[in-house]
């Protein structure tokens, strides 16, 4: 549920290109010379990935087993960084909080955009306007969003408690209570990121043939039956992919707890990435931070593989 970039290109299976005829086509498709430009572009991308992604990842893995002070050569410390992590009581707390955030984000951040997309899809007019309205929060910088909601949550003159008081309801502590702090962060995250997911769902809904709905209406199907038997089956794969995206992204939640709560109150919003950040940039312990990063990487990798296997089998 972090930043998503929308790129609209068709997924339809490309038509088989007609074989070129002419002097350059000698009947040996894929000849190196024919694809030179393509290889050139590929090289640029590969170099970028190698320099800025793959090499740092490998260095990160090595660093997990080292102690560094950036002055003397790094020393190998075996599993010491991992042992230090497991001995830190906050390590388990951070994982528990992160999983809790992910669960709440699934309940809110996964369901709400789909419902909103279905509602907007039903509009006959001003669809574009509502698409824009839903997408607008995505355009706000994440830190600005977090600071804005911090004011909404202010237990004194904040927007939400003012509204609650206006209808004679008691105000809530929102971020100041460990029982509501995580939920408060999830609401921010959902609001800020639902625009992208809604647009994707809208695109998927737009691909469902209208005749199916017309036929079901003639057969007397209720709204729920139409959703259950037409909408969901036709958007199943989008839903499955979006769920995977969302889980992987929400497991890396950082901005909201960093800006809004600093991990508090009483560690109730310390997430894996926030703890990782502290190890790296507050305690300057890059070895332990890398070990934590590696564990997150492995956990998300294992989860993604399992998820894809399960969904492919069922598909």
């Amino acid at each position, binding site marked *: 549920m*972090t*930043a*998503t*970039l*929308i*790129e609209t*290109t068709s*997924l*339809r299976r490309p038509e088989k290109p007609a074989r070129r005829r002419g002097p350059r086509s000698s009947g040996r498709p894929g000849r190196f010379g024919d694809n030179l430009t393509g290889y050139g572009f590929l090289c640029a991308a590969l170099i970028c990935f190698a320099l800025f*992604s793959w*090499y*740092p*990842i*490998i*260095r990160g893995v*090595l*660093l997990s087993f080292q102690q*560094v*002070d*950036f*002055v003397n050569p790094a020393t190998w410390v075996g599993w010491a960084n991992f042992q230090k992590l497991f001995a830190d009581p906050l390590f388990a707390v951070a994982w528990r909080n992160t999983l809790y955030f992910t669960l709440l984000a699934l309940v809110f951040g996964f369901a709400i955009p789909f419902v909103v997309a279905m509602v907007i899809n039903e509009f006959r007019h001003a669809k574009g306007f509502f698409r824009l309205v839903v997408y607008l929060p995505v355009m706000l910088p994440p830190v600005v969003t977090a600071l804005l909601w911090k004011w909404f949550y202010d*237990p004194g003159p904040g927007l939400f408690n003012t509204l609650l008081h206006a209808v004679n309801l008691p105000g809530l502590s929102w971020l*100041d209570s460990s029982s509501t702090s995580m939920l408060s962060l999830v609401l921010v995250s959902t609001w800020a990121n639902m625009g992208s997911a809604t647009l*994707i769902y809208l*695109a998927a809904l*737009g*691909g469902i043939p209208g005749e199916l709905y017309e036929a079901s209406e003639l057969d007397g199907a209720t709204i729920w039956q139409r959703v259950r038997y037409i909408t969901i089956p*036709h958007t199943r*794969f989008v839903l499955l*992919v979006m769920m*995977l*995206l969302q889980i*992987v*992204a929400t497991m890396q939640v*950082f*901005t909201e707890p960093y800006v809004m709560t*600093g991990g*508090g*109150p*009483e*560690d109730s919003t310390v997430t894996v*990435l926030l703890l*990782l*950040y*502290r190890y*790296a940039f*507050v*305690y*300057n312990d*890059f070895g332990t931070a*890398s070990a934590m*990063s*590696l564990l997150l*990487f492995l956990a998300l*990798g294992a989860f*993604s*593989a399992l998820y*894809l296997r399960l*969904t492919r089998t069922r*598909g």
Partner: protein
Amino acid sequence: MSNIPMVSVTTKPLPDAEEGQMNSFALRRGLGLLAAAGLGLGVLAGCTSANSAGGGTDAATDGPVTISINGQPPKTQPFDRKIFDEDVAEFQKTHPNIHLEPHEGFMDPKTFSAKLAGGQLEDVFYVYFTDPSTLIARHQAADITDYVKDVPHYNDIQQPLRDVFSDGKGHYYGLPTANYTMGLLYNRKLFTQAGLDPDKPPTTWPEVQADAKKIAALGNGIVGYADYSKSNQGGWHFTAEMYSQGGQIATKNGDKWESAVNTPQGRAVLDNLHQMRWTDNSMGQKQLLELADVQQKMGAGQLGMYLAAPDNVPTVVNQFHGSYADYGLAPMPGGQGTLIGGEGYMINPKASPAKIKAGLQWLQWKFLNPDRFETNLKRYKAQGQPVGLPVPPVADIWTGAVRDKEEQLKQQYATVPVSNYKSYMDGASRLKGNIEPPQAQEIYAALDNVMQGVLTRRDADPGALLAEADNKVKSILAQVK
């Protein structure tokens, strides 16, 4: 440098149920995301290539030498920038063999290691008092023990401040250039409105409680007393309050450090805060505050008191267009002690002896130079800057005759009401100054929880909070070498 693995997901509408294609798409997407997760590893690793120190002409002899220095104020602070640049020019004129390469910025823990690893760390770099112990333990600063004896007036600097840059075994790694002792910043206007005497600020914690209650009774969202509980600043203030009650956070027993968090003094700190927050309702509803939140409230005239260093006064006045006459500084309540903090400079561990010598000459000339007290004060006064606060250019770091001279000149050139800070200055020399504990940032992170617990939960158990924090501090101190 960012450590946030951003998940950039390219995604597209999925018009038809082309299952085989869909599954391979999902697989690619999953792998793509996995790679994005790996960026967390990547970004961290990107900071870690060991390299040599920053370039520049090096000279092992007394010939020309070029040193890079940071601490240059940003252009958004035109006066400070101008003063700094003028000083650089004058220093180079009077020291023709030393060429300075000034860099903007101060200490940023987030980029420090990356700069050191990448050879970008300045030869002379700025630090807060919380930094030296960690940097010394990690060998990230040069040993200057053999050089400091040649630094003029070094022995006139307060010993506890010099010791901030020591490893405790007789070796020194930096010079202090400014110092603060934590005190109580209060709004004189609100004191008057609440029927309190602004010339008699509270000196004990029960008096703080009573005054805060009266100020909060003014209503309109006015808060009597505010305290931090976030971003390690809660732990920092808890430490200061412990010192004010005569307690400690860590004590040294032989070669080992022991936690002193779970003590009657710690309990007194929490009981006091709990009373103000939940019984007196004098601390406001909004908690998880940090420095900027509290300064904003003080600048808006919505806050009576908070614990602060003197440099908060010009910040609050300048940012919120206030008046110096409206603010007063009192010594730390409690009378048992206070937290001392401050700033200074250390030298790149890869710097040559010539660079170390040149760096120390610059630091002494710019920051530790009693011969330039008067010149600096005149320049500040001529430019309409506040003079009279215990902050640079007349930092409170000296002892003996040098300190007396500085105080006399400060009063002579004062442009702000010095009487508003007199009780603070008297207290600063009377109260026992305690430096920050070892592994300060990690300990402060653990102590943030204690503050958060007592300020966000009415039913918080101070004993349980202290016991939990005590365990955490013990494990942090066990790592101190």
